């Protein structure tokens, strides 16, 4: 299996150097070759497992919990902020 590393890196929003692209292309092909052994396993009529706890639709009362933090604390790690808001690039065109 050959991976289109450029495409995957774009999907992952991961800026890679050319050297990295080349390295990952080789390494990931080798890993996927190993993973291809799963094709030996008959999984006809087998349900997939996504969660082992067996729990689903765990609900809680629709109210504010006890462990909340202030707006100031919530944005304390943002690299750029102003007046209690995070500054980021515009999403929409002017």
């Amino acid at each position, binding site marked *: 299996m050959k991976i289109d590393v450029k495409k995957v890196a774009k999907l992952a929003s991961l800026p890679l150097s050319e050297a990295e692209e080349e390295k990952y292309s080789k390494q990931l092909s080798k890993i996927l070759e190993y993973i291809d052994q*799963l094709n030996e396993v008959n999984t006809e009529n087998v349900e997939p497992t996504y969660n082992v706890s067996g729990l689903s639709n765990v609900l809680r009362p629709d109210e504010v919990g006890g462990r909340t933090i202030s707006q100031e604390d919530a944005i304390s790690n943002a690299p750029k902020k102003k007046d209690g808001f995070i500054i980021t690039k515009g999403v929409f065109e002017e």
Partner: protein
Amino acid sequence: MNITGLTLIDTIKALKEKKFSEQDLNEAYLSRINDLNSNLNVFLEIKNNSKGIPVAIKDIISTQNIKTTAGSKILSTYIPPFKATVVEKLLQNNVSIIGKTNLDEFAMGSSGENSAYGPTKNPWDITKVPGGSSAGSAAAVAADLAVFSLGTDTGGSIRQPASLCGVVGFKPSYGKASRYGLMSMASSLDVPGPFTKSVADARLVMDWISGEDGLDSNVFSNKLRDSSPSAQNDKIKGLRVGVPKEYFGHGLNSGVGKVIREAIKKLEDLGAKIVEISLPHTEYAVAVYYIIMASEVSSNLARFDGIRFGSKREDFGEEVKRRIMLGTFSLSSGYYDEYFTKAAKVRTLIRRDFEKVFDPSTGSGCDVIVGPVSPTVAWGFGEKMQDPLTMYLSDAYTIPASLAGIPGLSVPCGFVNGLPVGLQILGKFMDDETVLDVGEAYENATDWHKEKPKI
């Protein structure tokens, strides 16, 4: 009195009897950290406390107002404004954080070498890796730099470094303890758990950190039952202990295999019934794991956008990028069914292997399963760094239990060439108590856990 050599239970007892004060206790540990940390690179952050019982916390577990880097450059200045539930619960039990421990970046690695802050050294031999990813948490307990520590286990990250560092490490059942405040790696696999100097200590820490918090909807409401330590030795009599032939294949180092077989003989001497079993899908576990884990990683690490916290995505290390790439690929359009869904189906078969062995109506009816934690003892720095697949295969015996969500313990059970070996004990989903009972019975009958590295 050698304060830093005491178990958690003995430390609490000594404090109660006023043999030393909390200040003496903290000073003893801080002075040892002062002497040894520069050599071992266990701690990324050290706190000068004078009160409480000193615990070391893996630096992927959020600690309020204490820098938490996940071993990554991307979080080099991150200070969590909240704390993990497991940390909150420890603080309520008079425990204080003495430091944050080094790890493979975002818990991705089996040797501790993937940290952006340099590798942690194995206290038994500083030319060897301590295992990973909870490298610093394992080494902290092995070198007596904390009374106990917390780590996280996604595919073996507690059990494997515990084995390589010669300490007790416990991965509880998925859903015993809350993941709230753990930086998510693979959400269907991640669990927090303790490294300790005895199995009884691990039981006590689990009693503290288990249970619902309303913040992790996969946590079951049941806590560990109380059990008096004195009763453990009787509990192993008549228990059915399964030995899976797949855990003794050609990948197992012969020295390690010999030590593990002796440990199994010991369990038999203690009254356990040894049963030969098979877990036929074991050979596919690493392949399943690398698809499911990487897929969940790629999704979880999408949150690092450099806007709310952290620096730019270029700052992820090599292994983190590799796993994000693998996961993004296996979830991408056209490959999703071939890779992600296929792996999730084989995961079901791996779970069923365990269920069959534990089910009394199928003939095996095992209470626990035992085998090696790691196919080898600690290896040299750099030995597995060139080939990611070789590194991945070193977790072949710990990954299946993670995929099934069942509890797993590593207990010291001997040495090969002066390096520690751990016995892995696996149990039924949510029957963590029987795993701890068997571990404690073995520990009470042996002296391996009392051995300390000469540093």
